[in-house]
């Protein structure tokens, strides 16, 4: 194992973790409003999967999208400014937490109608194939989207036309407050459901960033070599509530369950791997902590000091000229 490589992955996950924690604080301070869905606990999936693709590949996500956007390389300050609704945000304050877009990094957006962005992902892949390019598309969504009609329409078209799109299902077992066992027939075999469309499908431990990346590298190689859709179910757990409006535990899951799952924190797991291999020291992690907290503090400062959009921005960007 390569020290630099492991620390790069750890660093990316830590950035997301600290960014999300500060976002929660800013929400409590009413600097961020609306819905805020945190990615805490699920960092290994975005970081592991995006580490397996090229910078010019497309990524598209649902409403829990901060992690994917940051993992794609977006500037944390611009992301935080968007959450604050500021003119300097990625989308000039018009998108918000659920609708981050960074077009120059081919981060094609966060979408907040469950299942609705899977057809868009197949369309990005269609454009790639139509133009005979060799990019591919990573499409992230929760398991709550799997039974939706639009998801299955997208699976069918992607399989029918052999489009280079990798559907990455982040299975955190709860569609808002409804456990998968009460929401999806065949809940124990999501990959099997999608294989029925003629799509190859695998399951991976979404808490293990190395496992995610290893599987994704294999999948990416196959899809790049021969355009086709692929489905990857990454099992995970969100440590926080569905959104900031929802407590981490209480109504639909127990404190004990959340604590048990926190024992498999993806950051802790990678840190243990690094330590066990003798590739890092406490001092290394402390340095990284300091570095990340500086980046996130700078992002908050930037967002806080940035201006709100001018009233004149209201009617701009509705139409292209």
């Amino acid at each position, binding site marked *: 194992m390569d020290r630099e490589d492991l620390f790069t992955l750890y660093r990316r996950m830590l950035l997301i973790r600290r960014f999300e924690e500060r976002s929660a604080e800013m929400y409590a301070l009413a600097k961020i409003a609306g819905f805020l869905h945190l990615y805490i606990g699920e960092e290994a999936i975005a970081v592991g999967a995006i580490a397996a693709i090229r910078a010019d590949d*497309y990524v598209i996500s649902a409403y829990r999208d901060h992690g994917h956007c940051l993992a794609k390389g977006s500037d944390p300050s611009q992301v935080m400014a968007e959450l604050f609704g500021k003119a300097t*945000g*990625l*989308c*000039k*304050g*018009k*998108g918000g937490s659920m*609708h981050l*877009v*960074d*077009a*120059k990094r081919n981060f*094609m*957006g966060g*979408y907040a*109608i469950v299942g*609705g*962005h*899977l*057809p*868009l*992902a*197949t*369309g*990005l*892949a*269609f*454009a*790639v194939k*139509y*133009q005979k390019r060799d990019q591919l598309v990573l499409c992230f969504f929760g398991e709550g989207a799997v039974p939706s*009609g*639009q998801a299955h*329409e*997208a699976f*069918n*078209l992607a399989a*029918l036309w052999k489009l280079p799109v990798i559907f990455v299902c982040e299975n955190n077992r709860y569609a808002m407050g409804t456990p998968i066992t009460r929401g999806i027939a065949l809940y124990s075999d999501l990959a099997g459901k999608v294989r029925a469309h003629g799509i190859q499908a695998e399951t991976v431990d979404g808490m293990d960033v190395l496992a995610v990346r290893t599987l994704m590298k294999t999948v990416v190689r196959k899809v790049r070599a021969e355009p086709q859709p692929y489905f990857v179910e990454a099992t995970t757990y969100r440590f926080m509530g569905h959104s900031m409006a929802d407590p981490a535990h209480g109504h639909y899951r127990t404190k004990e369950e959340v604590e048990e799952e926190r024992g498999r924190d993806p950051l802790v797991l990678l840190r243990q791997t690094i330590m066990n291999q003798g590739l890092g020291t406490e001092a290394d992690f402390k340095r990284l902590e300091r570095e990340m907290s500086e980046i996130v503090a700078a992002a908050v400062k930037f967002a806080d000091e940035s201006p709100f959009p001018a009233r004149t921005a209201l009617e*701009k*960007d*509705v*139409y*292209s*000229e």
Partner: protein
Amino acid sequence: MLIPYREALNQAMREEMRRDDRIFLIGEEVGHYQGAFKVSKGFVEEFGSQRVLDTPITEAGFTGLAIGAAIAGLHPIVELMTFNFGILALDQIVNNAAKIRYMSGGQLSVPIVIRGPGSAAHQLGAQHSQSLEAWFCHVPGLKVIAPATPHDAKGLLKSAVRDQNPVIFIEAQLLYGTKGEVQEGEYTIPIGQAEVKRQGKDVTIVAYSKMLLLALEVAELLAREGIEAEVVDPRTLKPLDLATITGSVKKTGRLVIVEEGWRFAGLGAQIAESVYAEAFDYLDAPIVRVTGADVPMPYARPLEDAAIPDREGVLAAVRQLIKGGH
């Protein structure tokens, strides 16, 4: 040249697809079947099945796919077999196509045309006979076009394909076979421009799509009674060319709006509100709307006839307006 409406659409798409290979046509039966209404006749032969794509009957899926392709730089034309089925794609049209530009702060554009027939044909029943243009006009981010003549259909479809925004382009089954003069060679008609289809001084009739043909027919009958109606076709419903409509109203002092859609919250209500706001002082009488009945479309012929504006209904509305005025 005198050609049918469907041929005008065919020419518009053909010319544009020859010009720009980012344009592709996607929808149910558009390829090998050549379109449910034969609008895409000969397209697979000319452009191949890579650019003329037959889809499964999954409107949300293929409309969403086209929107995704548009944000990646392609220019899709989506054919809905009818706009009734477009209801299945409303999430994609309303939540994605119309909003992606705004939500992204102008980073992404959605250059897409979603076209197909709206309104009633003959006895197709409640689920296949709807005029839904008001739904689309309500949504910021969409443009909506409903041409009545082959000339307008061709020129406006070419403009729609070149537009960088999502355009809803509403045709009509009963218009596909209607013929009209189309000018030779390359031309486009700007989006957002109404046209005065008939000059008159006594009353303005605003009508679009199929209802324009009815309005012109009624205007000829009124002329025999000495009433000269000016007929204005907005052609584009959003953005609406209010200046042309109010210009006519300022001349005639009276306005009748004819639309096939349901009365309540129909497009005519918006046009009337806009005219009241802009030209109230010029009106000699309240604006009159002739609309479809607020019922699901019945199957039985006499009931269907009663649910759609007809010659007698429009004639009566105009006569009443003239008689009741000054």
